[in-house]
């Protein structure tokens, strides 16, 4: 067994494989398929201060090697999470990270403050990159100024590990990453979905109720890899890489590009066992190449 452990600030992950927000529910949904404690961690669906109904149906469209979604942060709100979901999952032996979403800085801060008190939530992922909600979400993630602002506010309010999730819909992602780093982010995760669109030629209407949506899946992997590599050269904090990872080879590529850990997103829909297969595959790769620890390959192209 190779050493798969990685650290973000003081937080230890038994392995570098997490699952991505919005593709893994709150973990429980996968218990029939995998042992959750085999994961380095999982990231919950984007959670907001108040419960949200999300966008109107249709919210999904398949594309070439990927999909568009326009869920719009449907969730039951942070209080429901704390009261109902957290007690059910807190015994899990893996890192549970809450993806914090919002449309105002005050909302973000309020959610983060509530999460401070949950013993078994060691980290939050600040989602400043959701393309499917009008105010907030992506708007914060597409300018350095607003990314800095929201990170600063959350950094003040939240004591544990703070991961900032970046949007790829920008001219220069390294600028945003540096802004988050400067304001005290402990790590950045990238990428969220690319803003895309689908049209039904027969009905001559947009497919999604919101017209545009977020593109995910293997189609975006080349863009994600490039952004991880650019960001690796730009910041000192660890990077969590994601975007189209379907198997261990993809994961290795992200490590080589500069990721300390990775997340499995859309792949969970196609094979709900992907994440554990990736853990095994990384171990096999390291053994085959006689590498002791996964940490050794981060950024090593």
């Amino acid at each position, binding site marked *: 067994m190779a050493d798969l452990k990685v650290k973000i600030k003081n937080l230890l992950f038994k392995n570098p494989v997490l699952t991505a927000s*919005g*593709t*893994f*529910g709150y973990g429980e*949904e*996968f218990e*029939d*398929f995998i042992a959750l404690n085999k994961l380095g961690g999982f990231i919950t*669906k984007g959670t907001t201060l108040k419960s949200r*109904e*999300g966008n109107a*149906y*249709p*919210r*999904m*469209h*398949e*594309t*070439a*090697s*990927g*999909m568009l*979604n326009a*869920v719009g942060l*449907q969730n039951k709100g942070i209080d429901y999470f704390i009261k109902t979901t957290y007690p059910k999952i807190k015994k899990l032996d893996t890192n549970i990270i809450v993806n914090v979403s919002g449309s105002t800085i005050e909302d973000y801060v309020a959610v983060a403050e509530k999460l401070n008190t949950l013993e078994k939530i060691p980290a939050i992922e600040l989602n400043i990159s959701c393309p499917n909600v009008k105010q907030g979400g992506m708007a914060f993630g597409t300018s350095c100024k607003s990314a800095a602002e929201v990170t600063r506010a959350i950094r003040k309010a939240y004591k544990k590990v703070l991961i900032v999730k970046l949007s790829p819909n920008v001219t220069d992602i390294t600028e945003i990453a540096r802004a988050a780093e400067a304001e005290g982010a402990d790590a950045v995760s990238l990428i969220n979905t690319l803003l895309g669109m689908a049209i039904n030629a027969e009905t001559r209407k947009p497919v999604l109720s919101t017209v545009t949506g977020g593109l995910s*899946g293997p189609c975006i992997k080349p863009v994600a890899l490039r952004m991880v590599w650019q960001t690796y050269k730009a910041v000192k904090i660890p990077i969590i890489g994601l975007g189209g990872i379907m198997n261990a080879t993809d994961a290795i590529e992200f490590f080589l590009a500069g990721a300390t850990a990775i997340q499995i997103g*859309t792949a*969970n*829909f*196609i*094979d*709900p*066992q992907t994440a554990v297969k990736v853990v095994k595959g990384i171990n096999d790769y390291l053994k085959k190449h006689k590498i002791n620890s996964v940490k050794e390959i981060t950024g090593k192209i």
Partner: protein
Amino acid sequence: MKFIKDFKILKNTAVSGDTFILELQLKEKLPQMFPGQFAEVLISKSKKTFLRRPFSIHDVNTSKNTISLFVKKVGEGTTALSKYKTGEKVNLIFPLGKGFNLTKNKKVLLIGGGCGIAPLLYLAKCLNENKNDIHILLGGRSKEDILETEKFKKSGKVYISTENGSLCEKGLVTQNPVLKNKFDKIYSCGPMPMLKEVAKIAKQKNTECEVSLENTMACGIGVCLCCVVETTKGNQCVCTEGTVFNIKDLIWQI
């Protein structure tokens, strides 16, 4: 409990020009499955099919340890699936969704439009075991769309409507005279406009009515939140809270 398993294709039978039935065998013993439940099928030989495709469980044969899917070719994925041959493997996540609520000793009407008949065959069988008085109304554009009639006849009395009148009653399925009768419960699956019409009729007659929805799905297991329908309790996932809904819980813009 949900499973992810490879099934072996025992038979791929063309039913009509654009529909076929896949008979799929599992090595280990099949878990219990309820009518109205579905499976998410990986179509690995289709170049352009990225996500799994959901199909209702059309029939279950416990002695052969098989399930069958009734599929209509509508696009890349279903067309590729139609070409799978005996002996090939397909991967399924199953059984998904909650299925229909089964009545006992009641007079029930099953209404299927187009390939909406898919979940109704197994439903009819189970209702039959529960000693219901079963009436089955099948509809389509023309007689070519009316399929599986003989199989349905084994569980109940069959009524047929075709839009062009090429078989039995002419007109929409929702115009069939059998709907004038009183039933304890209506079960239905088919295109949205039909379901809405069925729901309207059921409401008028104050008849209990369950419909199975086919919203587009990415995951089928309740995590992507893409398949939602508006209900009295807010947006609910069709794949986990449904696919079967009692119409009184749905907020439809009828």
